[in-house]
């Protein structure tokens, strides 16, 4: 039995300097962590300390601060590897963000392995990051893209999964939707893909920050995620991939660090993961990434998930009770199959306008297509408002949201 210590949100809030910012007398109610989370003191301090005491380029210097920088950089890789259950640090490639991770797979693995007539399976709830790279490849190579549709209750409709995977080479799917909050049955889908000799890429950008992740348990082939959504800095993310896969893949970007030898007539590549890290990496951002997973590990990912389930339930109830006739929620109601991204719309009021009024009350929510235009078209809406929760949010934040929404509704009703 695991005992989970509930999050002490009041204390956590104090770790995030920006949350005590005063906006013309209103406190900042930050409900946009699905777009990018705030960063705790420990992450900022780790990065600052790197720049002030240990900064040098990595991997190439014999002198002490270069060694320290390299150890910190590679130490961060090991932390991230452990955080997601990788078997070895060599399976973690540092990239700019989840988007680059997916593009890396599309340029390196897919362009080496997929040919005209092959098929890739995506879903209607994918983020553009997991759509456009495949559309680019599809257009270049005459590859077919197949789509897994949604059920009316905002889950993936997996009734025809096997049929859809027939002859496919890759299944690329989000572990958690950034719009609907839906958590998809990753292991089941990976198994189905493998049964059809397809590989499975998991876009875990919204999952890793919120739910304990074990890539080995998933049995996936590729997993992409970004530091900036999980208390880490912007500018760094990771591609996890099985080591044999990484070793077999051709390089993507060429340059320093990714080579073993360069002659006028050609080059040979370095070991993984460095083979995929051309040029000077985001050294300090990596260290911040490592500090971010330390922070989350310290809170405990099970406690994080418990907290968010409770808060999401509270929010869904509050929204439904306060606006029974005018507000529609897009996403599952059962918090055991969803995360804390809650999309909604008011009858006759555009999401953009809602956001604008909320901003006057210090409440930050996102409005728009959330980089998921295909999903928006499926939902038949041009945009939604989205409130999303993280470790530093509490019931008072939800209450502030509901109060501001009531004022917005009133403002546009007059």
């Amino acid at each position, binding site marked *: 039995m695991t005992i989970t210590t509930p999050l002490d949100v009041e204390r956590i809030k104090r770790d995030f300097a920006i949350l005590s910012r005063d906006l013309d007398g209103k406190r900042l109610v930050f409900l946009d962590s699905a777009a990018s989370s705030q960063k705790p003191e420990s992450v900022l301090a780790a990065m600052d300390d790197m720049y002030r005491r240990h900064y040098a380029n990595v991997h190439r210097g014999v002198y002490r601060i270069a060694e320290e920088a390299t150890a910190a950089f590679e130490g961060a890789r090991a932390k991230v590897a452990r955080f997601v259950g990788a078997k070895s640090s060599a399976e973690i490639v540092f990239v700019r963000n989840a988007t680059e991770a997916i593009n890396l797979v599309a340029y390196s693995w897919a362009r080496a392995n997929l040919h005209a007539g092959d098929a890739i399976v995506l879903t209607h709830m994918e983020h553009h990051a997991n759509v456009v790279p495949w559309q680019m490849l599809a257009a270049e190579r005459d590859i077919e893209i197949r789509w897994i549709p949604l059920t009316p209750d905002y889950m993936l409709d997996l009734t025809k999964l096997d049929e859809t995977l027939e002859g496919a080479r890759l299944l690329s799917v989000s572990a958690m939707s950034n719009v609907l909050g839906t958590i998809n049955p990753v292991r089941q889908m990976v198994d189905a893909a493998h049964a059809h000799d397809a590989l499975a890429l998991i876009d875990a950008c919204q999952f890793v920050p919120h739910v304990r992740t074990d890539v080995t348990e998933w049995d996936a082939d590729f997993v992409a995620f970004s530091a900036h959504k999980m208390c880490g800095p912007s500018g760094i993310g990771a591609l996890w991939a099985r080591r044999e896969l990484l070793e077999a893949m051709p390089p993507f970007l060429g340059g320093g660090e990714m080579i073993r030898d360069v002659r006028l007539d050609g080059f040979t590549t370095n070991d993984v993961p460095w083979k995929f890290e051309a040029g000077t990496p985001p050294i300090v951002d990596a260290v911040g990434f490592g500090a971010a997973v330390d922070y989350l590990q310290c809170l405990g990912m099970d406690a994080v998930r418990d907290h968010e389930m409770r808060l999401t339930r509270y929010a869904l109830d509050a929204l439904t009770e306060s606006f029974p006739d005018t507000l529609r929620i897009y996403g599952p109601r059962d918090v055991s199959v969803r995360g804390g991204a809650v999309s909604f719309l008011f009858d006759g009021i*555009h*999401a*953009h*306008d809602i956001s*604008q*009024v909320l901003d*006057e009350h210090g409440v930050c929510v996102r*409005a*728009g*297509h959330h980089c998921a*235009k295909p999903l*928006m078209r499926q939902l038949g809406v*041009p*945009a939604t408002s989205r409130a999303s929760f993280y470790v530093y949010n509490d019931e008072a934040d939800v209450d502030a949201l509901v109060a501001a929404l009531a004022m917005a509704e009133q*403002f*546009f009703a007059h």
Partner: protein
Amino acid sequence: MAGLEDLYREIILDHYRSPRNRGELPTPPAHKTEGFNPLCGDEVVVYLDVDPATDTVRDIKIAGQGCSISQASTSMMSGAVKGKTVDEARRLIRAFKALMSIHESKLEGEGDGADLAADLEGVRLGDLEALQGVVKFPVRIKCATLAWNTLQQGLDEIAE
């Protein structure tokens, strides 16, 4: 909520709630142009019927969806250019963008918009001036200019 009333003037909400010139026109003779705001997903469709003999906007219809600012701006735009010559329409586009881009250019850190004032000279924007409050809300400028960029693209395509 002083700021908000600046943005959401009554006349804007009125155009939003009762948009003018909504509908479609048969193509041809009309020309259809679609515009997107890549950031928020707003879409505007402009049907333009330009009389080649007089170079006049004989009719204009509007479709699409978006926030109050983009919809009101589209509605106002349709009223402002209907019956005008193409030259007059283009002058309006320039004037409206000048009204908006004073801030837009500052966001990008280029110039101070001083010389844009010239574009505003001698053009009567009328109701459209209600949209000036938008410049205090930089992200909304693109909502306001979407219809006008789409109109410009349509006129360019017709001219080709």
